[in-house]
């Protein structure tokens, strides 16, 4: 059918899939393993499969939305600015936790991929796994990774982190609100920050701050390391 070759159809379908996913997410009481972006993604993939549409044809319409990412990434400066005030008290240990924690998880993932899979594209793509999806997508091309893959890695990492971090920290008896929030933001970016919102105000403030600082640090640092 010719409708399925129309860019505007696919732009509309993407928005519809996301709106439907957001409503289902609320209706299902915010399941941590099914964030709206993942549900929308699966819906669109299903629709492409059912209508036998290629990614290239889809992207003619999906590109309308994709082009909005530039200004939206610039926009992330606003929450970052508003969160900087939380750093004043403990800026040294916060900077240390963010730098050491985020670079450790990325280094371990990179090493494991290099040793067990041995694929350079996957290993390079892995480098951006700990940062919020828009920033990960923006820097991955610069790094020589793959933007579609990194998006998958980031979403899965976020879900894993949101599920694993709280139980692990409470087993270790290191579950102070600041530590929990910071770990969620550093290791599980926006999905972890969503989880932190359910825990409390301190947790969510620390998570949001850690997420934006990790993204900024990696976005600036990784391209230089890869030169």
């Amino acid at each position, binding site marked *: 059918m010719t409708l399925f070759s129309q860019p505007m159809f696919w732009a509309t379908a993407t928005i519809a899939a996301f709106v439907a996913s957001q409503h289902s997410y609320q209706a299902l009481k915010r399941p941590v393993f099914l964030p709206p972006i993942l549900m929308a993604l699966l819906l*669109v993939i299903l629709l492409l499969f059912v209508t036998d549409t290629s990614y290239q044809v889809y992207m003619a319409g999906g590109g309308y939305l994709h082009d909005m990412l530039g200004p939206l990434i610039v926009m992330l400066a606003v929450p970052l600015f508003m969160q900087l005030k939380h750093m004043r008290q403990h800026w040294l240990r916060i900077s240390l936790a963010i730098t050491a924690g985020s670079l*450790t998880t990325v280094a*371990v993932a990179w090493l494991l991929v290099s040793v067990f*899979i041995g694929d350079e594209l996957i290993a390079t793509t892995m480098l951006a796994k700990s940062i919020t999806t828009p*920033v990960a997508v923006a820097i991955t091309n610069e790094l020589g990774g793959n933007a579609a893959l990194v998006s998958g890695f980031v979403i899965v990492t976020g879900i894993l*982190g949101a599920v*694993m971090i709280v139980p*692990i920290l409470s087993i*270790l008896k290191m579950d102070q609100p600041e*530590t929990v929030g910071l770990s969620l933001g550093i290791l599980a970016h926006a999905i972890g920050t969503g989880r932190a919102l359910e825990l409390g105000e301190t947790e969510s403030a620390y998570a949001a701050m850690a997420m934006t600082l990790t993204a900024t640090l990696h976005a600036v640092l990784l391209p230089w390391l890869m030169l």
Partner: protein
Amino acid sequence: MTGFLILLVFLVLGILVQQLLGLPVPASITGMLLLLAFLVVRGSVPEPLRKTTSFLAPWLPMFLVPVSVGIVLHKQLLAEHGLALLMILTVSLIPGILICALCMKIGRSKKS
């Protein structure tokens, strides 16, 4: 719309600075850092920009769907390495969590 215009202006500035200096950092990130510097100097968020941000922020994930759908181009890679990748993503989180928690603890004991 004024708020959105501010974002576009900083994006264009980001493109300009990135190209002039030949930075390896993406133009959008450069634009974000320039906007951050502007906000720090100004000391507050201009009202139109605050409005635009609170309107657009919840929709941000939607704009990431198209690029993420590109995963369909990597079916073979996922079939081959999907399970290993899932395990690597899981395992690599643990040292990250430990280091984070330890850093927060070191700071705490020094302080007290």
